[in-house]
């Protein structure tokens, strides 16, 4: 056992950090939130550094790595609130295509993703006030043709991250009258075709634009249907688990920087003749921020490893990351604002960028509440699977 990143994984982080710093660090996120679109240029550079290829299988020109490598990288991109649909593409789309895709789908999308020529996002919500799986309401009606994978999609998805910046989305729809995760089918839908429109929404976190995506009587066939008809629900849940861990990794990186910012300010800013970080109200608050950040990181490490190795407790470990991090890392960011006094409330201080990310991530693709339920059900299932003597 060695519960730390390997030297190689650490090198991935160092390279990523050097690269992002050389591009301006958090200024990239600031340019994005001031209205510029930095995603196109940035994505090319991420592809040059092979980051878009990390999770793509070897035979499609990728590195065949899993969540451990990806989260190591995402911790760094999260530190700088780096714009772009990297978690959607690498943690959701690539594994789904790899697990469920036909050869045709795989060879269409995977090499393109690895090369940086294809970005992907997710379109699951039909109603932004409902949670998964109820939020999936769109019906995919069979077209009546001979092909069993021919469906007609019609409706408007909402909360599609980077909807206008991506080449395709993984779309979830119901292929029969159903509730819950039953009867859900997944589709890969190219965004640049007729019958697909996107419309920008006003998002809380301006570094992560959200879109509506309308499909207008769009006929799709085997090129689009991803995996078995009616039975995409469990693959979607696993994809969401990966995204949960990816998101926690990004916020952990952000929290790491928030601790650094608080330490820096606590050391430099003086009041009553002392640096404010000497006062324990501030010092202990920062120590707690650090403890929560490290705890989130520990959960991410294990969940990523467990997902990569198909450990029996992978689901529980993934759910635990959000159960723990959603509120605690949010508190890290709000405490950072507190530690900075009036400066903390300014646009110039980076605190609000992180705070808004944490808040918009909280209920997106799984709330802490739904993850608590996922966690405890998984735990009860493992415990009852053990024999009475407690042998594992």
């Amino acid at each position, binding site marked *: 056992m*060695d519960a730390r990143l390997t030297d190689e994984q650490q090198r991935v982080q160092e390279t990523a950090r050097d690269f992002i710093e050389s591009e301006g660090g958090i200024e990239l996120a600031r340019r994005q939130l001031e209205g510029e679109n930095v995603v196109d240029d940035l994505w090319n550079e991420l592809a040059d550094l092979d980051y878009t290829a990390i999770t793509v299988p070897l035979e499609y020109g990728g590195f065949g790595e899993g969540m451990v490598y990806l989260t190591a990288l995402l911790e760094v991109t999260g530190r700088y609130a780096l714009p772009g649909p990297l978690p959607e593409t690498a943690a959701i789309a690539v594994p789904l295509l790899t697990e469920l895709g036909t050869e045709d789908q795989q060879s269409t999308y995977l090499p393109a993703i690895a090369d940086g020529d294809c970005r992907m996002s997710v379109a699951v919500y039909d109603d932004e006030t409902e949670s998964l799986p109820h939020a999936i309401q769109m019906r995919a009606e069979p077209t009546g043709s001979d092909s069993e994978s021919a469906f007609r999609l019609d409706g408007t998805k909402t909360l599609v991250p980077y909807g206008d910046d991506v080449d395709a989305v993984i779309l979830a729809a119901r292929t029969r009258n159903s509730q819950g995760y039953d009867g859900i089918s997944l589709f890969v839908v190219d965004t640049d075709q007729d019958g697909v429109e996107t419309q920008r929404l006003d998002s809380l976190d301006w570094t992560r634009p959200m879109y509506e995506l309308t499909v207008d009587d769009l006929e799709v066939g085997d090129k689009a249907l991803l995996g078995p008809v009616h039975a995409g629900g469990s693959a979607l849940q696993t994809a969401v688990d990966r995204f949960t861990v990816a998101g926690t990794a990004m916020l952990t990186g952000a929290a790491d920087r928030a601790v650094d910012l608080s330490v820096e300010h606590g050391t430099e800013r003086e009041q009553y003749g002392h640096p404010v970080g000497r006062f324990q109200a501030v*010092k*202990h608050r920062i120590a707690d921020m*650090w403890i929560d950040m*490290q*705890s989130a990181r520990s959960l991410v490490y294990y969940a990523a490893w467990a997902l990569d190795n198909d450990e029996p407790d992978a689901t529980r*470990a993934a759910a*635990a990351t959000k159960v723990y991090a959603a509120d605690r890392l949010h508190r890290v960011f709000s405490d950072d604002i507190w530690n900075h006094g009036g400066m903390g409330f300014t646009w110039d201080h980076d605190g609000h960028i992180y705070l808004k990310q944490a808040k918009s991530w909280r209920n997106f693709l799984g709330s802490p509440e739904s993850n*608590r339920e996922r966690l405890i059900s998984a735990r009860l299932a493992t415990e009852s699977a053990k024999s009475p003597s407690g042998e594992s």
Partner: protein
Amino acid sequence: MDFSYTEAQESFRHELRDWLEENLPDGWLENPEIPSDREERNAFFKEWQQTLAADNWAGIHWPEAYGGRGASLIEQTIYREEMARVNAPPQINLIGVNLIGPTLIEVGTEEQKERFVPNILSAEEIWCQGYSEPESGSDVASLTTKAEKDGDEWVINGQKIWTSYAHIADWCFLVARTDSSGTKHEGLTAFLVDMDQDGISTEPIHQANDDRTFNQVYFDDAVTTDDLVVGEVDEGWDVVMTLSAFEHGMTSIYSIEQEYLDLLEYCQEETRGGTPLIEDDNVRRQLADLDARIQAAKMTHYRNVSTQMETGTPGPEASMDLVVSDELRKDLLNFAVDIKGPAAALWDNEHEAVDETSGYIRSYGSWIAAGTGDIQRNIIGEQVLGLPKDIKSKTSHRGE
């Protein structure tokens, strides 16, 4: 990154499992029962330690030459997991095994090692740790119990407090002031002191959990000898630091996880209004939160162990293990009492393994004992994050 165990480590686990099955007190796995009478209980813990020691399972982290197994940190982790899994009884001489033995092995003289170390594992001699005083707790370096040299003897006067097991201890690992001319960290010396002498009297303190395991200890011209000085005279702070590194390597996370699993079982078995507790939304929510925190604490501990495998000693970041696990245990047992319903008003340990009522009160003791959360947060803030140091007095004089 790799969270799996090697084959050798797994076979170590199985060796221990098999041994436990053979050697745990009769009927322990079905019904773990500890005698309620204090003296019988101590005898029971002592016998258990001797059973462990007989097969080198009492202090596996000790070198083989001293009756240990020179176990790696990973093996120690496995050991803790397995001991927690069967709710193994505690050893009577834990302070000796975990803190004083390893300190003597590291900085004691050959004669001291020969004379004292073997009797620690075998529980022939029970040890206590005499640091805290009425006026010196968190600020232990300010202590004022005096040791004065008289020929080849040292004469000790002063008072210690909160000294766990002093009432049954044969020996005390004592830190006293031998020079008060310098700063408070200078002029301290560590001594081994025979508890069986007229100059020492102990008075048990009645604890919040109605037990009496810590004590006041009075030193009135008590004596010890030159050869029982540990480390150098006036350099006792170094010895204190050596010992505290062993303290930081300890964690209770594995027993907390086991307590959590017992609680989970309880919630599945017990009903309220005809409905199993486990189907209650609030219960599920709280269990899930505890579960996530336990996993976080355990994985953080694994990370600290992995770092320590490389660096040798736990760094200041290990303070986090203590803060997190002490607070977690408090919250877990607090919840365990709450879900008993109105029966929470009774001193009743309905579910033996969780031992919730007394465990709940007891958890306040361990929360305070190894340095409070405030002190641990100072360590993290100052030594890990480099924040400015607290305003502290450097002397042991209190404005007299």
